[in-house]
């Protein structure tokens, strides 16, 4: 009989991240489909009672929590200890967790302590023959596998944007608090705080409807033989502000900073999409001045509708990677787009 444990942490404001509510839906779906399984909710953080109450009606059989000041911060030693304690208490055979930076840092360590196995970046989950069967991508989104395991405990870390976020009425969850063996919590690490990237412009918005990708063309010499970096900067920022879009970049553009070339000051490697960058999920994506080479385009796997503006009709986007390629000057087009957006 599978004992399913859903684990999540609270955020600074005491709520669960959206990714956690999505993973909760995944755990509920599994427990609904695996006959005889039970579902436990396991939360960790500074104070987890409000978060447990917020999902009290989810249908889990029990709620366990690890809380206290030492679990307020996201830190490997304490988080790995908390996850291990929750999984032990639940006697979990299957652990479902969201992909957040906090979970990702510590969950594999907990799996190792419990002699378990772990699969991450799960992009689909179903049940076959009474056991989970998952989908995940290999070689940076180039091929997709359907796979399962017989070992337990089995940790399943679900990607963001795959399941709908659970929603329901709040209630009072019968939360059982666990004490964690303090010997397993000792740490020499102190969390100092959160720092935004070099500029104070927030350009990465995972929840945005639209991803705007800027490529190296924005900082290359244009038809008049000149660079137009200031123009590029203005056009891109104006679009982001008007559309509340998230900003992605090609590798070439962000690499220019370490190579000492002219750069767009609000961009860093954190914006990079692709093979060695991120693979964001957005309903729409617009690529500008970006060639659409394969190492870049693999980062677009989860962008549903794709359009590109490029001067080159033979660029990568033309090769089945975008729905529409506008062969045009992105400076002209995007300036006009911004005007129309008002």
């Amino acid at each position, binding site marked *: 009989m599978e004992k399913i444990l859903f684990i999540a942490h609270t955020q600074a404001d005491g709520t669960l991240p959206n990714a956690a509510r999505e993973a909760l839906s995944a755990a509920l779906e599994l427990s609904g489909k695996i006959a005889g399984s039970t579902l436990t909710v396991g939360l960790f953080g500074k104070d987890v009672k409000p978060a447990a109450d917020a999902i009290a009606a989810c249908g889990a059989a029990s709620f366990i929590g690890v809380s206290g000041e030492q679990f307020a911060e996201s830190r490997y030693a304490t988080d790995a200890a908390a996850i291990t304690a929750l999984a032990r208490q639940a006697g979990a055979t299957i652990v479902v967790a969201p992909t957040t930076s906090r979970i990702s840092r510590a969950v594999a360590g907990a799996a190792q302590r419990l002699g378990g196995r772990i699969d991450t970046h799960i992009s689909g989950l179903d049940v076959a023959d009474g056991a989970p069967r998952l989908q995940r991508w290999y070689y940076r989104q180039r091929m997709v596998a359907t796979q399962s395991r017989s070992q337990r405990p089995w940790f399943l870390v679900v990607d963001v944007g795959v399941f709908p976020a659970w929603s329901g009425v709040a209630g009072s969850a019968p939360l059982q608090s666990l004490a964690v063996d303090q010997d397993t919590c000792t740490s020499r690490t102190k969390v100092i705080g959160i720092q935004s990237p070099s500029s104070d412009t927030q350009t990465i918005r995972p929840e945005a409807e639209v991803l705007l990708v800027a490529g190296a063309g924005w900082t290359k010499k244009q038809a008049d033989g000149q660079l137009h970096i200031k123009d590029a900067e203005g056009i891109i920022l104006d679009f982001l502000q008007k559309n509340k879009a998230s900003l992605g970049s090609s590798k070439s553009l962000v690499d220019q900073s370490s190579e000492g070339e002219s750069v767009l000051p609000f961009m860093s490697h954190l914006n990079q999409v692709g093979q060695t960058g991120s693979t964001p999920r957005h309903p729409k994506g617009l690529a500008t001045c970006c060639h659409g080479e394969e190492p870049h385009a693999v980062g677009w796997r989860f962008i549903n509708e794709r359009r590109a503006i490029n001067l080159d*009709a033979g660029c990568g986007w033309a090769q*089945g990677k975008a729905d529409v390629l506008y062969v045009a000057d992105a400076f002209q087009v995007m300036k006009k787009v911004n005007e129309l957006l008002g």
Partner: protein
Amino acid sequence: MNGGFHIVVCGSIVPDPLQTLAPMEGATGPALKNEMMLPSVLDPWAGHSLYEAANLAKKVPGSKVWLVSLGPKAKLQQLMMSIAQKVAFELVVLDGPASGFTDSTEVAAALAGAIGSIPGLDRSRLLLFGGCASASRDAGVTMQMIGEQLGLTEQFLGVDELTVTENGALRVLERIEGGQYQVSECSAAPAVLAWATGNLPEPPNNPQIGMVNMRTIMPALQKAQTAAVGTGGISYQAVELPSQRRETRIVKDMPADDIAAEIVAWLKG
């Protein structure tokens, strides 16, 4: 830092990202078509961690860098022709698959075993480096599991910056959500740092470094242990290429104003 760091970097090969990849059914599970023939590169995020390691070792006297690689010996040897010219390190080779389809638990066990038996490694000064994820399996779990097996419970994931403070503490910037960093301070080694891009460009080739490295690389390749690493308990029901290839509509000779109007209608639609 008294006596410097002992920095162990875990990193292996992945297919060159410009190659087209296709899956096939191999003898022991899924594999890539023509896997042994595909040109390969140093796994990018592990590569960044190697360059960061070398840079740190230069700054902190008495430090030393090892590169521990699990992969087919012949392909690692090829890779060394370029990597060995970039930064100084001592190579430790485990001869085995570099496939993304192997189980991370088995990979971690093999690497932890190899690191545990490096002669002269001082675990109290150990910084275990690697990529935050591979470009093959892309699981982001191997470093934590190696760390656990070596008893390292100060761990960082998605690191872009490490500074050693005046009192020898490690100040670490880790990537978190929304393009932000979590800043932490760990009082001293040992620790695990799984790197993202870091801040350094790829070092240029330096034949002198290559000559020094080669003295230890060839013996390391010769005495490489075979690592029995496989797919573990994973059963693969299918591995497929995505079927979706878009029918791209290529719009030429349309005035910029009309294109803009079409894009705005699409954005708002």
